[in-house]
């Protein structure tokens, strides 16, 4: 059994009942077989329709790929098919009797890292592919780093193209150990599991391979079906108000509800709450989800909350349960890890729009603490963050936000920066500290 270097996730039968939809993102370097793996996963779970497969067979001949190129199932843009690469993230969907899956197939090229960030930002699990012939490359490390910063709960190392190294167990162990040690040294380490496979031939993707008698773990799909995406620590319910619902007439003339997504914990009718940043207090009088009245609401639910007293609440405010274990921080001085995603570099003194929850304002960069060297994992001083760099910055906002640390509550701790001139989304920030 070659799983000794990995800290595998133990799964119990009771966990199976709680498993919800699993969001997966692929990661890894160019030509390591990400799209082929997703194509194989879709094909072997009978998710590929006959007309899609016929179109792929036809296109494979047209692009001279010889055998059926399953990557063409997700490389849907003309430019991608012509060049045989993935440029932007493709989302695909499949379900087994066990659970539903949402898959983001992301590009491997360094220049398209921003699209990888888009695909991986919502993922529970990152599948990091490694070409067994080439081993761990810079992009493998970059993607593993980004995936852990974005908060995936586990990394699966798919050691691919094992058929091309004669299913060599020692090589597999070596790659698995290198990725595992790298991830454990990251600022936010997560469990790592490695699986030897051939995405092209289907070994250990859906069906167990006869070529790896030395591998004691499950094939990829079985592992994904059984993975328990542990809920994060409950902080206490928060709701970032997106909109005030006021019918202004008819039988609901006096109705006043606050719409938003619950995060960080739950709400129940009767809960004492505080509206931040103003500090007004009230009680939850009623809760509505998709038009129906309910007694309580959990993380992820899109709600309308009615309060028992008339308080001043508007878009951008946050309603917080008083009995929560950790209160959010309020302030305009923010420290964050950031993935930089535009050509225009981030420098000290530069100004951007920010969007956090439902609040928008201006952000000025007051310091760049360091950027991460992906190979050495050292924190190197720098005067700018360029396209695809990962760094840690300090920002001064034009107005206070009500936020959590990203590691505690991703919804309350995430923020984007927007270029004032082009309106492009420039940075993905994961908050590490908020102060007045």
């Amino acid at each position: 059994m070659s799983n000794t270097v990995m800290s595998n996730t133990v799964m119990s039968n009771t966990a199976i009942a709680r498993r919800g939809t699993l969001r997966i993102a692929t990661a890894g370097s160019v030509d390591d077989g990400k799209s082929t793996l997703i194509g194989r996963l879709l094909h072997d779970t009978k998710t590929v329709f006959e007309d899609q497969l016929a179109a792929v067979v036809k296109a494979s001949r047209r692009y001279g790929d010889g055998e059926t190129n399953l990557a063409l199932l997700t490389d849907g843009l003309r430019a991608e098919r012509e060049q045989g690469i993935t440029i932007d993230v493709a989302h695909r969907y499949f379900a087994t009797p066990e659970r539903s899956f949402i898959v983001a197939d992301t590009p491997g090229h360094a220049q398209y890292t921003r699209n990888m960030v888009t695909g991986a930002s919502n993922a529970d699990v990152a599948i990091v592919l490694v070409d067994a012939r080439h081993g761990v490359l810079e992009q493998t490390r970059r993607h593993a780093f980004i995936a852990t910063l974005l908060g995936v709960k586990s990394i699966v190392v798919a050691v691919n193209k094992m058929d091309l190294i004669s299913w060599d167990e020692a090589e597999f162990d070596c790659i698995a150990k290198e990725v595992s040690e790298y991830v454990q040294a990251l600022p936010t380490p997560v469990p790592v599991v490695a699986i030897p496979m051939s995405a092209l031939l289907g070994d250990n993707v859906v069906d167990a391979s006869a070529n790896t008698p030395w591998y004691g773990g499950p094939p990829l799909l079985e592992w994904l079906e059984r993975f328990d995406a542990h809920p994060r620590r409950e902080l206490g319910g928060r709701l970032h108000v997106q909109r005030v619902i006021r019918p202004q007439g008819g039988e609901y003339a006096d109705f006043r509800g606050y719409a938003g997504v619950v995060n960080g914990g739950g709400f129940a009718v009767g809960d004492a709450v505080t509206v931040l940043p103003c500090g007004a207090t009230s009680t939850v009088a009623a809760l509505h989800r998709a038009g129906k009245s309910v007694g309580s609401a959990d993380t992820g639910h899109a709600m309308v909350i009615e309060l028992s007293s008339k308080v001043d609440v508007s878009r951008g405010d946050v309603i917080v349960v008083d009995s929560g274990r950790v209160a959010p921080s309020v302030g305009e001085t923010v420290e964050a890890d950031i993935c930089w995603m535009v050509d225009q570099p981030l420098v000290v003194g530069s100004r951007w729009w920010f969007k956090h929850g439902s609040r928008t304002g201006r952000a000025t960069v007051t310091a760049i603490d360091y950027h991460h060297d992906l190979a050495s994992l050292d924190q190197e001083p720098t005067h700018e963050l360029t396209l695809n760099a990962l760094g840690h910055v300090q920002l001064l906002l034009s107005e206070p936000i009500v936020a959590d640390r990203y590691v505690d509550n991703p919804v309350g701790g995430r923020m984007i920066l927007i270029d004032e001139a082009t309106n492009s989304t420039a940075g993905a920030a994961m908050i590490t500290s908020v102060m007045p």
Partner: protein
Amino acid sequence: MSLSSHPVNAISPQASAHLDSLTDEAITIIREVAAECENPVLLFSGGKDSAVLLHLAVLAFAPARLPFPVMHVDTGHNFDEVIEYRDQFVKDLGARLVIASVQQSIDSGRVVEDTGPRASRNRLQSVTLLDAIAEHGFDAAFGGGRRDEDKARAKERILSFRDRQGRWDPRQQRPEPWDVLNARIRKGEHLRAFPLSNWTELDIWNYIAAHELPLPTIYYTHTRTVVERDGMLLSVGGPVVAEPGEVPYEAVVRYRTVGDASCTGAVESTASNVWDVIAEVAAARITERGATRADDTFSESAMEDRKREGYF
């Protein structure tokens, strides 16, 4: 297409939980775009996806009224049942309907209609749509597009940027980390918002079942005179005329998608209610567009090409 041997009449707990999370996601997107944009519109064709979208939009703001209008880009090549349904559904939900007419675009010389027995107005809709967006000053248009429909749609962001010419540039899409929606645009540009991005055809039907949504009757089995063309069953009468050698015949069919009548095919089916359809969709081996849309089989990148021009 064959009926499943395991008829269903309830949604499994697993599918139900998945549907709830998709519903939360869609409602959140609709609320956020409505809050960030000054003048959004919801595109409504009378098809199943836009019916689900409109229903979700109403739920997103209940008990307040829908804060934006609904627009139908009318090709003039319609199924009568769909237009009746459109008017009734919009009225029942208390929404305001704007109609943008492809016929008017043709009459005013904005577009030139293809001629011949196989002419379709599908592609002309892009011009009518962009003209209507400019005329009404809409800065965001909600669409019922789903990523599982087509390989080009699979690449689309939830909030998708369109330049002043209404073009989509798939190579220069804005990053969209965490679905934190960046709705900033300059005057003359607009956004397309796709709250149903992560839904599949089966999710749509599960929602229709769970909420008992009415649909145009042509989504269920009926007898219709058709010709078989390029492997599709096209309804004769209206814009489709039988060509020499094509023999019209009576078939028991339903529509799996509803679009321009000239290029939307029916499928053989005896599914008479929503549960029959769910069983049928779960067992289907052909995609809905592959089975029913002649316009998508023209070329490998037909959808990408249309989307670049401003299509839905």
